[in-house]
């Protein structure tokens, strides 16, 4: 199992500019895995302070739903 999260629209590795961006999430079973998983799958992305969810630039998907659950997770400023 490998998990990935990151901005999918930055052209230069770890450098980016302010503004609108897309965050991508990925879980993959490595090709050597013997079994498949049969479960409910939920992912939580913690957005750092100053990075807010932008529903307007979020494309709707038939495969998953996305929602902002807490604007200030545990008072850390994360969302």
């Amino acid at each position, binding site marked *: 199992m490998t998990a990935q999260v*990151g901005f999918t629209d930055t052209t230069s590795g770890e450098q980016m500019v*302010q503004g*609108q961006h897309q965050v991508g999430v990925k879980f993959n079973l490595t090709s050597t895995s013997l079994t498949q998983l049969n479960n409910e799958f939920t*992912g939580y992305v913690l957005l750092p302070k100053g990075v807010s969810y932008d529903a307007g630039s979020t494309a709707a998907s038939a495969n998953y739903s996305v929602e902002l659950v807490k604007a200030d997770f545990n008072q850390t400023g994360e969302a």
Partner: protein
Amino acid sequence: MKVVWKTHYLTTTTGLTAAFGVDVTNDADRTIDLKLVGFLGDPTYVVPAVDDEANITDTVLTTDQQDVNSNGSNTKKVVTTGASYVIATTNHLQVVGTIADAQGTDWGQTVTLSPNGIATIHLTTGANSDETFQQLYGLDELPSLGDLGITDGTDRDSNFTVSLMGPITLPASWQGKVQVAYTTT
């Protein structure tokens, strides 16, 4: 941010993906981390072994210590990973390095080359500001074994040495305005 997938099956070929929009504002720190916590049920899976040095982008099998899903439990098994970014804030100049093979067909962060292969590196400056930059020094270092990052002094993990083939060329608008110098130290 909570992502709920409709499918309940994950195989070696399907995978789970999702994407959403965010706004990175002025309030963000200069370095920001994204963190992902995945609830995929009781693990019948394993994650890749991590060598000596842990990295934020590693996939880690752990428990929901922060109770991210707010179920009152911090013992649920989760898969976590993350990513770290540096924001070029207002009035900063961003320099983007891209590389392509000798034909210059596909500019990106990586290029596949054979030994003795030739690549071209582009350094593109983009000012995230309307202000005039008075003095600008650009510095780029080709990889060599055991080299360290220029600004942060950390190991660059370079596995081979690259040598410069030709002179650095400047765009026409920079001609006569910029001095180019080379050093091996």
